[in-house]
């Protein structure tokens, strides 16, 4: 190992603690009837919520509907928001509850899951919108492959990969969001990565 490799290890292994104070203040403003707080919360969390919804539904329109459901719920909850200590986790929990509610509705009212070609275009689109990072063509191809492979995993495995790896939630937080223990969340993540390695032909 070289001296230059060490900072990379540290930066990936140690996550910065979230600073929820601003979001907590936004929630309190919302309880006081300040509508602009809703916009602040949207700007802070909508993208992550959308990606969480996308991991669950694999459909952009459904993911956007889930985001809307989250903010409708937020707007109508009222005083109980005072007790929320971790707004990020709370919003993701709302999104997951909305997704479960959607799953319980009759199947005819839901959109059919995307087919393979749609998956490819979706994930290619994800990469196409990636901003400001220069990468080699091989890197992009590999990322497309693994992201397509991720799309074939079960929803709960896609979800834990999204929450833990992409959004940076700890296993404890991801477990709370998904309603399972920290160990179950870690196990799901490990299984998901194992299956991805199998699909990519790596051990």
């Amino acid at each position, binding site marked *: 190992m070289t001296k230059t490799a060490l900072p990379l290890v540290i930066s990936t292994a140690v996550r910065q603690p979230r600073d929820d104070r601003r979001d907590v203040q936004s929630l309190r403003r919302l309880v006081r009837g300040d509508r602009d707080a809703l916009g602040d919360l949207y700007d802070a969390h909508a993208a992550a919520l959308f990606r969480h919804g996308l991991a669950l539904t694999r459909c952009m329109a459904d993911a956007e509907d889930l985001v809307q459901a989250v903010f*409708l719920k937020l707007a109508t909850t009222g005083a109980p928001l005072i007790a929320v200590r971790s707004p990020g986790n709370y919003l993701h929990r709302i999104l997951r509850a909305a997704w479960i509610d959607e799953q319980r509705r009759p199947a005819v009212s839901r959109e059919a899951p995307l087919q393979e070609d749609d998956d490819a275009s979706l994930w290619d689109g994800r990469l196409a919108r990636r901003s400001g990072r220069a990468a080699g063509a091989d890197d992009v191809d590999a990322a497309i492959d*693994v992201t397509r492979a991720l799309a074939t995993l079960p929803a709960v495995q896609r979800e834990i990969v999204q929450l833990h790896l992409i959004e940076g939630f700890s296993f404890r937080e991801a477990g709370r969001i998904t309603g399972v223990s920290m160990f179950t969340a870690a196990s799901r993540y490990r299984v998901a990565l194992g299956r991805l390695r199998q699909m990519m032909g790596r051990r």
Partner: protein
Amino acid sequence: MMDDIERQLLDGGRPEPGRDVRARVLAAAMPLVRRDDSRLDRVWFSRTWRTAGATVFVALVVTEMLSGSPAPTVAPPGRAALETAQAVETAARDAGLPAAQASALAARALAIASQPAAAPLNVDALLQGSMR
């Protein structure tokens, strides 16, 4: 430590909702926002207040447990009961009973006379019962 799969997943881009979604979501949600910050709600949903309330409750319970219930006390016999017992003892001696038996009769009379809402003591019946 991340492996290459994780690194590739991180490199996979981070999609965001469309530009019109923000306006659509906020247009739907903002009209539903209402002021809801009554003092009672703030107290009920505030963790500080809840913690303080729980602490006070626990403190009261602990204080109650440590102080314990007061020891049961026996009320001293009243003056009338003492006089009755003395009369019984005197009557028993006058009737020729031994001193020990007279004292036992007096104690029994005292116990009966000390009971709340005790029936009037029939000294003659008590003496006759002990002489049988």
